[in-house]
């Protein structure tokens, strides 16, 4: 790819990652959430892959798989968090602690510090989707290598 594409990709990569972070972070307030934000970030990864070639990310495969395992484990552990009540119980909602502010009923401008375990789960799933989909694209791109064409 030419210098034009590379420069734009360089510029858009952090922008897309930040946008993905926004989509994940505001999953409980605006449309979006872990999957969508993770998909956006994974697309940013795919953009780097196509603009700079797969060899650029070759050594990141182990990192991605580890990140994915960590995301999955974190999600299950968040489920275990509710085990005092029931599995997947949202123990943090309305507890006035982390993400624990109560919300009045009805339309409102939205408050980030609400929704209990939901933002944490969003982040776990977001990392997982980012790592998983990025790993899929990377594996496809790396399969066969350069020499077999």
């Amino acid at each position, binding site marked *: 790819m030419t210098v034009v594409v590379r420069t734009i990709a360089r510029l858009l990569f952090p922008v897309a990652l930040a946008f993905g972070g926004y*989509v994940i972070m505001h999953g409980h307030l605006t449309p979006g959430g872990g999957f969508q934000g993770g998909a956006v970030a994974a*697309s940013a990864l795919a953009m780097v892959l196509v603009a700079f070639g797969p060899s650029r990310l070759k050594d990141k495969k182990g990192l991605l798989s580890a990140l994915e395992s960590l995301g999955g484990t974190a999600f299950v552990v968040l489920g275990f968090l509710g085990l005092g009540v029931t599995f997947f119980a949202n123990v943090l909602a309305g507890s006035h602690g982390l993400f624990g502010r109560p919300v009045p009923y009805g339309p409102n401008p939205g408050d980030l510090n609400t929704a209990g375990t939901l933002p944490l789960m969003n982040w776990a799933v977001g990392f997982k989707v980012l790592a998983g989909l990025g790993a899929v694209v990377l594996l496809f*791109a790396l399969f066969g290598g350069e020499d077999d064409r």
Partner: protein
Amino acid sequence: MTLWASLLTMSLVMTVVAGFLAVVLRDLLAAALALGAQGLFLSLAFYLLQAPDVAIAQAGIGAALTTAIFLLAIRKTRRKEEE
């Protein structure tokens, strides 16, 4: 309301048409492009059906990732469908 209905109808028709193209085109690259267009109009239909969450997911996955995976797979195999 009528306007909304016509928008929805058009996007649905486009979805079906793009899907039809994805089926009938013999060039696999073109078929993958048509599938991308189908995902795009599907996303628009979700958007019109007031499902922005699903529309974002479909846009992110259908526009970028599915196209990417399909194209990478076609590149690793062959482009034309055999007769």
